[in-house]
């Protein structure tokens, strides 16, 4: 004990230091467990499968970009909806069921830091899932080169693209993902069971998705513009055509902030009213 008092402990009270610590632990837990790699492998496998399927369609029909064909169909949604619960269902539910939230919150850490740290880590992992997309232009070039060499120059067989065809989809997937990840963490904070968190999250995203489909079912009634504004499928088709719109950005960022604030309330409430 005596020798310890000679060595002063360097301490910091920095808010960002704690946030960074939580972020790194969470991010590492995605990459240092088989769990994260299973999600990553599934996502990359499915993306490859679709790209291949879409390229086959493309050889018959032309006009739109590859990304449009890939994202603007129901198959994509089938997979897209399940990414978020998979990434986020553990975040808060596991802390609570293992009791580690107690150790967490008796350290000098605020609820906001915990939620933000977990959110940023999950969002970054989600963005990593889409990085293979950055290779598509290169794959397209390779394909075009192969076609050119094999069949001489045949314009019909070429994959036409502009940088906007890639930038658009990547940005809408990131922007909407920022909200869905927040929604997943919110669902995870509601319960101590990961399964329930995952189911609630999936259902919420499906409900949100179908809100955008309401005008298709009910026709163009007076409130229809609001549903068009929320429609994730319309946003994705616009963005994958290369149309960059700032309205979804505002929508999803404010929804994400709101959901995270709500999550903080829920975590505190559940602790205070046990």
């Amino acid at each position: 004990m005596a020798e310890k008092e000679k060595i002063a402990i360097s301490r910091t009270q920095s808010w960002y230091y704690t946030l960074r610590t939580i972020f790194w632990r969470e991010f590492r837990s995605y990459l240092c467990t088989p769990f994260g790699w299973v999600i990553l492998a599934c996502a990359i496998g499915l993306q490859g499968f679709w790209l291949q399927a879409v390229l086959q369609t493309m050889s018959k029909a032309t006009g739109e970009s590859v990304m449009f064909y890939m994202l603007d169909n129901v198959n994509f949604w089938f997979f897209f909806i399940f990414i978020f619960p998979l990434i986020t269902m553990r975040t808060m539910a596991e802390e609570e069921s293992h009791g580690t939230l107690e150790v967490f919150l008796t350290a000098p850490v605020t609820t906001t830091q915990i939620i933000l740290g977990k959110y940023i880590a999950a969002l970054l992992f989600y963005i990593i899932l889409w990085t293979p997309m950055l290779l598509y232009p290169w794959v397209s070039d390779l394909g075009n080169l192969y076609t050119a060499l094999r069949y001489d120059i045949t314009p019909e067989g070429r994959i036409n693209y502009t940088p906007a065809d890639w930038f658009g989809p990547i940005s809408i997937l990131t922007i909407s993902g920022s909200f869905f990840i927040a929604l997943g963490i919110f669902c995870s904070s509601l319960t101590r069971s990961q399964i329930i968190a995952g189911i609630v999250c999936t259902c919420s995203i499906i409900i949100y998705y179908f809100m955008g489909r309401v005008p298709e079912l009910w026709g163009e009634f007076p409130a229809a513009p609001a549903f068009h504004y929320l429609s994730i499928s319309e946003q994705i088709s616009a963005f994958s055509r290369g149309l960059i719109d700032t309205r979804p950005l505002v929508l999803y960022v404010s929804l994400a902030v709101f959901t995270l604030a709500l999550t903080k309330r829920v975590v505190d409430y559940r602790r205070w009213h046990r």
Partner: protein
Amino acid sequence: MSMVTVEHLHKVFGRFTAVKDATFSIEKGEIVGFLGPNGAGKTTTMKMLTGYLPPTTGTASIAGYDIIDKPLEARRHLGYMPENVPLYEDLRVTEYLEYRARLKGICGKSVRQQVGWVVDRCGLEPKRRNLIRTLSKGYRQRVGLADALLGNPDLLILDEPTNGLDPNQIRQIRELVRSLAEDHTVILSTHILSEVEMICNKVIIIDQGQIKANDTPQNLTRNLRAAGRVSIEFKGDLDVVVKELEAFEPVKKVIVEAPLPGGWHHVIVRAEPGTDTREKAADIIASHHFPMRHIYRHIPSLEDVFVEMTRKD
């Protein structure tokens, strides 16, 4: 200044009152044993002190910082080891401790140095590279204790630190807590009363949410009902001896126990606390020339205090 001040702390879960109007204070350097039957409110009180559970009414402060108004400052002075020690299963021991050290605001080279120190202190050296998932109960308990020690906090709150350990491990943890006492304030809850008698210089007994006693173990045992009790075994005329014993001034009651084989009688003499009736009782039996084989004055232990304070009847 007191290390811990608790004023009228009250906690209600729905219709169940877990802690009723708890008021006590703990001075710097004290080792406090927190005793009570299961479900008495020990863990709840400890959780409130750490700021994890908010009190329904009342306040508490640690090192002068209110746990509700200044929770972060209060927690910086606190090391907490919860019951059952929840840990992240997927980390290695040193990884976990480094993470916890950073959460507690330790930075730079101090992280490694602090982790090395607590690993050394808690005997975790052979397991430092192991995954927490693979550790035995005893080592998990030590990881929890090591975590609480990180950053050398002024106050340690240990909730049943020896729960589920074998006698050797209990001894090691006890030695560790005793060595911490030199410059820490420690609050520990336990069911092992001999442990408290050995290491604590203050005892708080809580039952059904209420603080029943708050004193040194010596003071608690001194004024106990059981203190003046003498047990005697003899042969001869039981009625005569009982009558003469009851006539003696400090004796309150003579209880006749079931007769022992071989014609031996067994009586228990209850007297005023702090008196010794052994000499007089021996005289009475000797004056009748009855044989006597056993006379014993009960030395009150903390167990007697505990039973007396928390008994339901």
